[in-house]
């Protein structure tokens, strides 16, 4: 009886949630991502997605450091830094990987997200990656800035490596005295992969992070 009702309840959710729900249940599928790029943005972007996939595929085998190196380089070289108000006409917008590739531009969050997603797809462990809010003081007399970087922890207790769009070189945290970490997070604390799709849940849209995660999943990237 109860299970029947629960199933019926899921039926209603499916009716309400529609395609978004189905998309939300899907696992990453890069072929479909590429198709989506083609239909949404055209040949050029689709080709770019293909390039990005080639870069990932080439880095499947080697160790974590090589993966970090190539992903960091790939995005730092190809993506221009543009402020959200200019690029998206919004104060703050967290773009998905596909959107960043399509625009070939983004701000620090977009870099961090794109690198984070790419590294996960390249087979890296989620616990090793943390998107981190940092306070950045470039020089003794400059104003401190809010910034976001991706930190890589080889082990939970080790010193992290910093992937920064402002610095092409990957350095350990101790060599980045200009950065003070404020708060770190990754998908594990918010993201529950499985039959509870956040995109059908109205409260999911409140958080930017959950929002971008939902959109990533809808684009078959996560």
């Amino acid at each position, binding site marked *: 009886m109860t299970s029947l009702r629960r199933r019926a309840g899921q039926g*209603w959710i499916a009716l309400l949630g529609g395609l978004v729900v189905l998309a939300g249940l899907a696992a990453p599928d890069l072929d479909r991502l590429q198709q989506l790029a083609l239909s949404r943005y055209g040949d050029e972007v689709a080709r770019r997605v293909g390039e990005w996939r080639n870069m990932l595929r080439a880095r499947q085998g080697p160790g974590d450091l090589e993966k970090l190196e190539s992903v960091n380089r790939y995005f730092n070289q190809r993506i221009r830094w543009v402020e959200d108000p200019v690029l998206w006409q919004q104060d703050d917008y967290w773009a998905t990987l596909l959107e960043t590739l399509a625009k070939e531009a983004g701000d620090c969050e977009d870099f961090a997200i794109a690198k984070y997603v790419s590294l996960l797809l390249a087979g890296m462990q989620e616990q090793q990656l943390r998107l981190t809010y940092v306070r950045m003081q470039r020089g003794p007399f400059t104003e401190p800035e809010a910034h976001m970087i991706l930190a890589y922890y080889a082990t*939970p207790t080790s010193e992290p490596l910093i992937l920064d769009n402002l610095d092409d070189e990957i350095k350990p945290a101790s060599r980045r005295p200009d950065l003070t970490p404020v708060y770190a997070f990754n998908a594990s*604390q918010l993201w529950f992969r499985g039959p509870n799709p956040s995109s059908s849940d109205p409260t999911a849209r409140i958080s930017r992070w959950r929002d971008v995660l939902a959109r990533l999943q809808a684009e078959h990237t996560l």
Partner: protein
Amino acid sequence: MSLVKRLWIVVALIILASVLMAGLINIQSAQRYLASELKVKNLDTATALALSLSQNATDPVMVELLLSSQFDLGHYQRIDYLGPEGRLLAHRERASRPTAVPAWFMRLFPITAEPGVALLQSGWTQLGSIRLYSDPSFAYDSLWKSALVLAQMFSLGGVLAGLLGMVYIRRVLRPLKGVVAQAEALAERRYLEVRPPRTLEFRLIIEAMNRLTQKTKSVLDDESVRLSKLKTEHEIDPMTGFMVREVFRRNAAAEIEREDTHLQGLLLLVQIANLEELNREIGRHQTDRLISTMAQQMRLALPSASGTRYGRLGASDFAILLPGQDESAPLQQQLHASILQVEHGHLLQLSYGAARYGPHSGMSELLASCDQSLTPAGAGGLVLQPPEGAVPLRPARVWVEILQVALRQHEFQLALYPVRGRDHSYLNTEAPARIHSSVCGETLVAGAFLPWARREGLVGQVDLEILVQTLAEVERHGHAICINLGYESVCDEVQLQRIVETLDLHRALAPRLCLDVAEDIAFEHPQAFAHFCGRILPLGCQVGIEHLDHHVGHLARLHGLGLHYVKLSRALVQDVQQESAVQTLLRGLCTVAHTMGLQVIAEGVAHAGDVPLLFELGFDGVTGSAVA
């Protein structure tokens, strides 16, 4: 199961299903909403806690303190602190708050709030993560409360909707009662017309049945008209509208023999002495016209009491039977004076004769004595000898006393005569009333005391007394008894109410009670009679017309009233053997009556030889000395 019940069950099921569905959907969405709210709350608190820990927690004591404060002040069931490697370093937990929500409800609508998880770090150093669980009992409480409120509101709404539905079903199906009543009436050969309702299907049925009713009515009307014409052709002199000789003799004899009307009266004879001369002098045509107007004038001149009969005995002889009249001289003068007013009336040479009759007078002797007493007009009135066997006259006050004593001391008796069906079977018993009077020591028949009762306004009381006696008789012997009701009982609302009340007290006996109403009352007061039938018939009594004679042509007017039988008067049936025209008439009457669902009973059958013939003509019963 009735249609209304079935529809009602369907309505109830639909309402129940929709209320249940609406309630389920409502509770489920509340359940989902609560779960997601809990999850968001867990996440937000975990994040906030992690933020402050990341900024301030420099040692494990600090971490524990911050966790404790969050736990002690907040509404959390459990907070876990896990190290970087996932080892549980500290935790706070309390038992779930006891709740009034029944367990089955929590099983049906589980609220599974995921824990809020947040990562901790100090500087670049990972400190692990915290996991925060809410106590779902508050959410269950709120869900349970809202479910109860919902249940109340929905059951109220359901009851309201059900009531509305019931009212609507009743309204829609109300015409069905009319349809059923009409169909049942049709089965009993009553032809009701019902106003067509608005519901299409019912309207079609009712319209079809109304058409059937109208068709049957018109067939019956045509047949009645034909019979009436037959009767008129056969019985009535076309020039004067008086009965022809034999018919008059028959009718007058029947009237004289009837014991429930006046026992005494007058027979007047008017003779045109110079008919031959008139024919010669003013021509046959003119003479006929003169006679025709004279006849009309005669009707106007004399009192039109019930039972009065006019006959044309020959070309120049006219007879008038006047029941209840005693003095002939004033009536003759009145008659003569008004005939003289007719145009050319003075040309007529008239002679008048008169005779008194009593209960046992023979028609031939009466006519003979009239003949003998013929005196030319202008010679003054006649002084009449009382006929042999006539009841000696009593003064009015004696009659009043007889009646009052009879009512007071229950001196009424019923004389019982069986009504026989085919093969001598018993149908019911006719019970004319008698007074066994202690005042005069005689047994008085209805015809003797009823005229006085009528004059003194006691008919209602007499009818009621007889009714009570009859009911007692029915109860005692168990057979069906017919009594007759007079004018007051039918037409007077107060009297009718008393009769209804009396019958109401004896509902069980009512089906064995037959109430006869004389044709004059039924046909001359049709509205009162219809009202009477409407009141009496639902009580289960049988109602019929008695002494049906003059109004046979109007028989069709009775349909729709729901009567049970008609009794044809003695005058109509007594010559059935001799006259083939009478047979034709009676056969037709039986057919019409049967079509209307009425039984036909012949009254006053005196010759045993008539009985088989009457049944052959279609009668359902006979009464009278031949079958007593």
